[in-house]
């Protein structure tokens, strides 16, 4: 019985899988933030390179990965798929548990899978600097890594609560030559207006996105880059799921349950879409997809499926997605990368249509799971990832109760080496079990129209 299932370098996918043509009906188009009209490519030119705009609304099922991008991905790809023998034994479950370990990349997560192509396309179109936001710092460090390889400058607005919780993420971004600014900052109008209202704010991804978009929109040599949510980001992550499928096939396995954590949805999308293709085609009707999110920010489980902005200031296009409201500032949980009010429009659609399902967990129970995982499999995972771990353990325990021998795979999206303060907080019982008072919030919002034309 194998533990690590490895692919050769020449088995790394040469193409990304685009799920859009396989959806039963086309996605609702993104809309212009000012007019509410469906977006045309030109609307995005001032912040994105053309090739990424094209990929955002692409009907090609497979899209070639540029050779220069492949060369860099090969630094850590293909990533291992690992059979969780010790965890299975510890749980006493008949289920098979596998995890795809994305923590082996230089920045330590799945994020460089898209950071590298994004930096590449920007470089190709003559852009000199990229601005972005980061929550936990995983995305910021991934983009710092990628831009530096292509000789671009990089400015990162890091959510203030994470900036304090994860000082070494900031140091990493420095090593890769990027500038890291705590958000909200006084450098942008969006940041200033938030600080005016609430000088003590914890910040949020929604605020940091506003700052980064404003920075890009007001500098002609600068483009913006988003680490999740958008279709092209999910597209770039599909190398993960494609590899996983091949690795399982080499063992004659096919999953019954596919699990990933969801912040903006990119790691879950990239992991699950190649499998979702089979379900959409009808060959794997019973395949169960579980998107896992924090109870503190339960976008897919408690949000509304509607058009909303991707950021606080309303600078991004309106996207049809599950949302908790673009001005919702989620509590400062340690899984900073999951503190996002919205979610990928494609993942949202699939959850809305019942192809996939979503569940949520409180903070302390996911750390219980992460501890179990660390003490059986050894890897200390990121707080974001621990949500997926928790779900995998719960499904495995359910298999034990029912005597079912299911195959469970989850995306182990990143390591937690820079998140030890979160683990310390767990061990000193400082973790608050935040949750979203959905009923009360609906009532509070009942009088206020939030989004024009939505």
């Amino acid at each position, binding site marked *: 019985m194998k533990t690590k299932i490895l692919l050769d370098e020449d088995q790394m996918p040469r193409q990304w899988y685009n799920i859009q043509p396989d959806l039963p009906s086309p996605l609702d188009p993104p809309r212009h933030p000012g007019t509410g009209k469906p977006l045309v490519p030109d609307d995005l030119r001032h912040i994105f390179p053309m090739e990424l705009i094209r990929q955002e609304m692409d009907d090609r099922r497979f899209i070639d990965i540029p050779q220069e991008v492949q060369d860099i991905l090969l630094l850590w790809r293909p990533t291992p798929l690992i059979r969780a023998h010790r965890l299975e034994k510890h749980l006493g479950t008949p289920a098979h548990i596998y995890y795809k370990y994305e923590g082996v990349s230089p920045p330590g997560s799945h994020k460089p899978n898209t950071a590298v192509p994004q930096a590449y396309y920007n470089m190709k179109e003559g852009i000199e600097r990229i601005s972005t936001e980061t929550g936990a710092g995983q995305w910021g460090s991934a983009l710092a890594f990628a831009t530096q390889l292509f000789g671009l400058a990089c400015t990162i607005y890091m959510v*203030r*609560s994470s900036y*304090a*919780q994860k000082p070494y993420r900031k140091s990493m971004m420095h090593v890769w030559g990027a500038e890291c600014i705590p958000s909200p900052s006084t450098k942008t109008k969006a940041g200033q207006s938030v600080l005016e209202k609430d000088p*003590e704010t*914890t910040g949020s991804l929604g605020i940091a996105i506003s700052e980064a978009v404003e920075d890009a929109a007001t500098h002609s040599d600068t483009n913006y880059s988003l680490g999740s949510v958008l279709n092209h980001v999910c597209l770039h992550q599909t190398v993960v799921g494609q590899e996983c499928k091949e690795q399982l096939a080499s063992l004659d396995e096919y999953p019954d349950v596919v699990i990933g954590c969801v912040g903006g949805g990119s790691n879950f999308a990239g992991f699950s879409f190649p499998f979702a293709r089979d379900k959409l085609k009808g060959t794997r009707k019973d395949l169960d997809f579980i998107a896992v999110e924090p*109870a*503190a920010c339960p976008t897919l489980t408690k949000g509304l499926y509607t058009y909303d902005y991707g950021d606080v200031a309303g600078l991004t296009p309106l996207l049809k997605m599950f949302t908790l409201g673009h001005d*919702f*500032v989620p*509590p*400062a949980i340690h899984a900073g990368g999951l503190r996002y009010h919205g979610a990928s429009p494609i993942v949202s659609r699939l959850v809305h249509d019942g192809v996939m399902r979503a569940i949520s967990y*409180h903070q302390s129970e996911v750390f219980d799971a992460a501890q179990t995982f660390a003490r059986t499999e050894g890897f200390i995972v990121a707080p974001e990832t621990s949500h997926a771990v928790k779900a995998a353990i719960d499904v495995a325990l359910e298999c034990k109760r029912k005597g079912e021998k299911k195959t469970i795979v989850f995306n182990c999206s990143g390591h937690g080496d820079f998140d030890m*303060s979160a683990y*310390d*907080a767990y061990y*000193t*019982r*400082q*973790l*608050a*079990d*935040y*949750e*979203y*008072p959905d009923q*009360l*919030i609906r*009532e*509070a*919002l*009942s*009088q206020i129209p939030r989004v024009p034309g939505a």
Partner: protein
Amino acid sequence: MFRIGFIVNPVAGMGGAVGLKGTDGLFDEAVSRGAVPRAPSRAEEAARLLAGLPIHFLACSGPMGEESLARAGIDDYEVVYNVHKERTGATDTIAACRIFAESGVDLVLFCGGDGTARDIYSVLGDSIPILGIPAGVKMYSSVFAITPEAAATILEEGLETGREMHIRDAEVVDVDEESYRRGELATRLFGIARSPYRPGLVQMTKEVYEDPDEERAKRNIALFLREVIEGTPDILYILGPGMTTAAIARELGIPKTILGFDAVKAGELVASDLEERGICTLLADNPRARLVVSIIGAQGAILGRGTQQVTPRVVRALGKENIIVVATPHKISQTPHLFIDTGDAELDREFGDSIQVVTGYMIARRVRMERSLPG
């Protein structure tokens, strides 16, 4: 120089050691059962840690403070109140506090129990911060530090140069000792004092960015609840006692009785300082009603202590899903285990083992509840 009024209730806690659940009116009984004073030595423990700090003490003579200070090696004190009788009592505490108030002390540090806190509060109200060194039998009030050392640490850190002392609202709870001895806990919110505390330190191991500022946290809760209340004009809201619910009333622009239950609907005040009967009448007239309550006292009570107006009958009429609990993050960190004690154990059980508490603007937490009553 920081001026502290220092007072020890020498008889506090004597009854507890000999199974009397309180010493009020039972001093002779306690002594005959072999009780010895413990408050002076508890006070001395705290004072020892304060020696050397820039504090000038105004003290009471003999066992009411002077002795503890002297034994702790503190010499910067003056005796401002002399005990004349052999046996001290509430009248001494009250008289000494009047002198403290007139002399303009910065804080009153006392050693005793809930009864002592109540006597001090009756003179000082919220005009001067008070801090308790625990020595009593019952300490349901939130003005007490957990231990004598903790009391000293709070002051020591508060006096560090360049730091401002953090002050919070702290309930003074009145326990009826007669019924307490019969095994019933009949408490009443007596008042809300001001008390120094250690703010949530911004250490790496802590929940960073939990709002260390209680006032701000209360405002954020109030802002959220105002939006909820205004968003549901057909629902009657009954606001319970305490400073967090008072902040909601302030946000709504309506008056609030700090210790009572007041009703509001569509942003308008409907009734003030309701008793059980008044609440029941309102519930009968309003098919949709909710109760907004906070955590009362140092023990984490949501219903049942300081909230006698909310009887099991009221809770049943309301329905547990219509009870909204609000509390600042600081309050929760002080009282990590909440409990509900309506006086009807079966009803209490229906609340389950955790409850949602609104802690900020659109933010809530799930907090564990204890089954049995602490203390």
